């Protein structure tokens, strides 16, 4: 494995370790006795004692941290106060919806953002470019839940084409047709992010087009379309790809609200409801899993970036 990969992986692992410390302390930072924070107010004395021994609350805080870490490594993220089932199971139930939503949204973002941004760059200065840039600017400024609400109004309430809320699993019933439940939410979620990718692609292409090596390419006698695709776009995409990591983070954040608007049974809605229900073990578990996921995605993007840009040595 190249030294670059080793370096990036070890950096991700150390960041994760540090983040896990913060997440561990999350429970302790919430006002109140950690035991009752984790068990809720209706805990019986037996449950309290059991948890006290399990967590080792009489031990120094460092030991508690490592005990927690050991549990996490085994998949034990605690028990949900509301559901009285393991946190991991609760999260798993919501994962399908959220992962599908995120994937479909990323597809929209890429398929719309990149080509439209490229077209705007190629027609730089024309009315088309100005119109597209204006629309992109607008979409990047609107709140996703507002877009979502109006999509529901137009397409679900008025036109009746698409369902307005909920999501029956494609595995349990209905099959792929149930993906239409995710169409409106994914569009609402994709809109501002696609707009940002559009602007980034456009800006990146305009930047690259001014480079000396593009002049060399033209001097070689290559046809303009090939210059655009093979030289300009190819180099411009580097900036876009490196933005994917943080686009994903934005997706996670905004999915929380979007799932609430569309009543999708995903992790986002779970987080909000858990906050309202004071189901702290679930909140902690979700934050942990999200951070792991985000760091993993970033790592993958970094490693892939190396494939695209041979100039990248040790960061």
């Amino acid at each position, binding site marked *: 494995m190249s030294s670059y990969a080793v370096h990036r992986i070890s950096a991700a692992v150390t960041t994760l370790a540090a983040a896990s410390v913060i997440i561990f302390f999350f429970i302790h930072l919430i006002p109140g006795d950690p035991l009752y924070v984790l068990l809720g107010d209706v805990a019986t004395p037996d449950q309290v004692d059991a948890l006290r021994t399990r967590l080792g609350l009489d031990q120094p805080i460092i030991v508690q941290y490592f005990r927690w870490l050991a549990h996490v490594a085994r998949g034990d993220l605690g028990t949900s106060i509301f559901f009285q089932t393991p946190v991991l199971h609760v999260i798993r139930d919501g994962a399908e919806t959220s992962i599908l939503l995120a994937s479909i949204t990323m597809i929209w973002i890429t398929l719309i953002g990149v080509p439209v941004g490229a077209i705007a760059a190629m027609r730089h200065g024309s009315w088309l470019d100005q119109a597209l840039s204006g629309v992109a600017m607008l979409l990047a400024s609107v709140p996703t839940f507002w877009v979502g609400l109006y999509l529901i109004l137009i397409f679900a309430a008025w036109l009746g084409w698409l369902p307005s809320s909920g999501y029956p699993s494609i595995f349990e019933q209905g099959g792929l047709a149930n993906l239409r439940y995710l169409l409106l939410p994914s569009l609402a979620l994709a809109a501002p992010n696609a707009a940002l990718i559009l602007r980034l692609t456009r800006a990146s292409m305009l930047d690259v087009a001014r480079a*000396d090596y593009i002049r*060399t*390419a033209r*001097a*070689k*006698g290559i046809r303009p379309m090939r210059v655009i695709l093979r030289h300009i776009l190819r*180099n411009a995409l580097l900036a876009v790809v490196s933005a994917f990591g943080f686009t994903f983070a934005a997706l996670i954040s905004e999915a929380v609200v979007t799932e609430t608007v569309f009543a999708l049974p995903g992790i986002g809605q779970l987080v909000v409801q858990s906050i309202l229900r004071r189901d702290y073990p679930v909140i902690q578990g979700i934050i942990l899993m999200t951070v792991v996921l985000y760091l993993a995605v970033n790592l993958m993007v970094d490693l892939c970036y190396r494939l695209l840009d*041979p*100039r990248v040595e040790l960061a």
Partner: protein
Amino acid sequence: MLRVRDLSISIGTPTESLDIVSSVSFEIERGEILGLVGESGCGKSMTSLAVMGLLDKGGPWVRTGRVELSGFDVINSQPYQRVEAGHGGIAMIFQEPMSSLNPVMKVGDQIEEAIAVHQKTSSARQTLKARELLEMVRIPDAAMQLGAYPHQLSGGMRQRVMIAIALACQPQVLIADEPTTALDVTVQAQILSLLRELCDTLGLSILFITHDLGVVAQLVDRVAVMYAGRVVETATVERVFAYPAHPYTEALMSCLPDPGHWKQRLTTIPGQAAKPGQVRNGCAFAPRCRYAVATCVDQAPPCATLFDNHRVLCHFPRGVTA
């Protein structure tokens, strides 16, 4: 082989234009190296880009002129258009080898891309040809370097790759826009000798643009001196150094430090080069010319031809008794 006639490049709109390059004419024969010399901003790069057809839309544009390549006028055609019309003919290398190569493409692929445009051969033959070209520009270990990326090569090597790419375009004329300015002196010498060798063996004509008179003395056969967007003198390199006819050229020569006397004061040319549009009538150099008289300021200088095809744009060329 390459004949540039009355080339004028302007900025502004067609109705309200301002010439930044005026009536430039020169020719380069087969196997000859012409040096285009002048200070920064005199329009030499602009001229070369215009000849090449690489002026950006929205920037300066060609107002009039002809660029004849073996008889065909290729003015205002971009390189790919020339290839399609069958007049490949001109290739160009640039000043900054650092940034003139696509950073994410292997060097071999970039050469093969140029080959593919100008010759119809199989992919395997293209790779072979690319290797030959690298060898021709004296890059050691050519076969391995085909797979290298530009950032892995030194400045001198990158410039050689640029030359190889230019050769892949099978040019009759090579335009070299200050190719050695960004390199150190030792590497510079190698590149210059390479260019001379290519010229001799392949019969390549070279338009060599530079502001460095030392390079001019070493490499070129003939010189065209530019000032404020005009060609003020054209002659063989020996005559330009020994018998400069235009006051500007004469002043340039006197600015060169004499290696014999090391305690001299360096001479300069007083004043600043004229900006486009500053000169209405009369000679552009008149404000700074020590020999200027009233005629120089009022009337545009004619192009006089002294013997041996030595052309001067001046009312009173030096060394010619009235």
